[in-house]
């Protein structure tokens, strides 16, 4: 019998993952000892834990470690993404604390699942091997399926979870097929190995082309890009709003980052090939997202279509395939996290007894009842549209200029036209808030966490729009391991 040689990996590369896993397991155990009516404590512990893990992770920003036989990579790009996921967690926990009690599902498992999903996304951000991407994808997806159906007594949430689960399982099979085809041709699933094979043997084998498409399809579900976006509106509408805020940002960012790494590290020589596919997909994604959003009267559904459109903009960052494109992508991830979770936070803010807060009517006359809240919502809407002085404008500007630099003039023209369309439906909400009178006089009763989260996000969206330098320097630092 041949001895199995187990090389000892460099464990310092996975310290953030280990800490996050320990945190999630601890939350599960801790939850057992917390009485039923005080589950908020679990959320607060999760919040402190995330901040602690974030502080530790930030120390690795200048490291570059490849370990686990080359399957796992810790570089500035992955560290910046990990920090983003933890930021998402912090904000989502803040907006969930009170909301879960209103929905009557204040359970400790919610926070543990959120952290488990984060572990999966962290692995995706650091994956240097197709199998590793799959592992992270599944760890994340399984937690998120459960979260989507967390208000399990409402039929809509159950439907959302089941739809998400069925689509996810189906697409992960397609993704695996892509990995299998790559392995069949190359004989390895490591990203550098694939790149090396293509350098030596060229890419005449059509199977590689199929693999490139199947891999994009597999990740495309989480990105919600054009032909794989059908699940998104139903799931976003049915899932609890705090979960919608989470799944519209974090898994999407993780999947785009993984797709980026796969295309840049493994299929770099096939750039002309995947660029021509992504061009079409990006144009389709943003157009379908924006045009369909115009017809929506449910704000959660509208934001779902708008997030499909934003995925289309973000694909331009991969497509540009240059320094500016990657920096713009990293910047846009943060900008998108701030403004999109913020907008969903306002929907949660409007959640009252018997009112879900996601109908356009629920926003009627908000400016009279709560002028500050309406103002913050306008900031988020401006930012989502991409109008200065907000962080969304800077992000879009960087993305579009990267695409222009790479010579995609037509795509940028389509994107700009799409931004104009988006102005219509975003400002439908603003119009209702400012031009109409309130219908219901049930007072708003937001918790402390939600107030802090929404107003901080609003302030950041505005301030980083005027002074984006800290975020730009972070984005520049993240690209140092590429190009």
């Amino acid at each position: 019998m041949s001895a199995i040689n187990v090389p000892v990996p460099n464990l310092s590369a996975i310290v953030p993952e280990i800490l996050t896993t320990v945190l999630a397991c601890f939350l599960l155990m801790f939850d057992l000892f917390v009485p039923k009516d005080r589950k908020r404590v679990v959320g607060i512990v999760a919040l402190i834990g995330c901040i602690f893990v974030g502080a530790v992770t930030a120390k690795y920003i200048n490291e570059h470690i490849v370990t686990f036989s080359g399957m796992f990579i810790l570089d500035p790009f992955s560290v910046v993404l990990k920090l983003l996921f933890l930021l998402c967690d912090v904000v989502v926990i803040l907006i969930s604390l009170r909301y879960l009690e209103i929905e009557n599902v204040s359970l400790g498992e919610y926070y543990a699942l959120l952290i488990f999903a984060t572990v999966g996304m962290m692995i995706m951000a650091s994956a240097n091997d197709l199998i590793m991407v799959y592992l992270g994808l599944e760890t994340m997806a399984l937690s998120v399926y459960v979260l989507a159906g967390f208000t399990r007594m409402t039929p809509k949430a159950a439907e959302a979870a089941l739809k998400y689960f069925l689509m996810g399982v189906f697409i992960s099979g397609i993704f695996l097929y892509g990995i299998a085809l790559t392995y069949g041709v190359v004989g390895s699933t490591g990203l550098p190995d694939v790149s090396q094979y293509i350098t030596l043997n060229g890419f005449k084998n059509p199977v590689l082309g199929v693999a490139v498409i199947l891999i994009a399809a597999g990740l495309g579900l989480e990105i919600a890009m054009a032909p794989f976006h059908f699940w998104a509106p139903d799931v976003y509408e049915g899932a609890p709003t705090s979960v919608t805020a989470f799944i519209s940002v974090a898994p999407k960012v993780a999947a785009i980052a993984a797709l980026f790494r796969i295309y840049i590290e493994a299929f770099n020589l096939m750039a002309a090939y995947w660029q021509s596919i992504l061009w079409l997909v990006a144009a389709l994604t943003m157009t379908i997202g924006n045009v369909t959003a115009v017809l929506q009267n449910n704000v959660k559904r509208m934001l779902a279509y708008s997030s499909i459109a934003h995925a289309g903009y973000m694909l331009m960052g991969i497509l540009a395939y240059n320094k500016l494109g990657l920096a713009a992508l990293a910047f846009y991830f943060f900008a998108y996290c701030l403004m999109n979770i913020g907008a969903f936070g306002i929907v949660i803010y409007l959640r009252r007894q018997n009112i879900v807060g996601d109908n356009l009517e629920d926003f009627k006359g908000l400016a009279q009842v709560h002028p500050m809240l309406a103002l913050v919502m306008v900031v988020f809407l401006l930012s989502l549209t991409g109008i200065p002085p907000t962080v969304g404008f800077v992000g879009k500007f960087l993305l579009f200029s990267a695409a222009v630099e790479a010579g995609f003039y037509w795509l940028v023209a389509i994107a700009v036209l799409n931004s104009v369309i988006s102005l219509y439906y975003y400002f439908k909400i603003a119009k209702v808030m400012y031009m109409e009178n309130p219908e219901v006089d049930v007072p708003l009763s937001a918790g402390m966490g939600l107030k802090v989260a929404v107003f901080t996000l609003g302030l950041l969206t505005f301030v980083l729009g005027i002074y984006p330098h800290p975020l730009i320097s972070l984005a520049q630092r993240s690209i140092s391991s590429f190009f």
Partner: protein
Amino acid sequence: MPLQDAYWPLILVALLAFGFGAVSVLLSSLLGPKKPDPIKCSPYECGVEPVGNARRKFFVHYYVIAMLFLIFDIEVVFTYPWAVSFKSMGLWGYIEMVVFIVIFLLIYVYVLGRGALEWE
């Protein structure tokens, strides 16, 4: 030993297995007493009524127990190869397995705490 010769024992075992099965079925149908009744003639389906409405409610505990069984089954699947190559995997492999088993212990504590193993 040439390759063809290496397969002879396999073919012999296959013939033996098939022969034993055929002979015992044949003998029991020839020699066995036959007193059919409706319950005996119905196919065995783990104690569940074989014919009837498929849309019936199952006690949710079945699923919980099945899932737990699966999880701990996987644990054994991973522990077995480790036990076989215990020496060559050394201290590192030992530590890895201890971490793995501690995680299972946590699952067990969680399951107990949630009351998933109680039948009411």
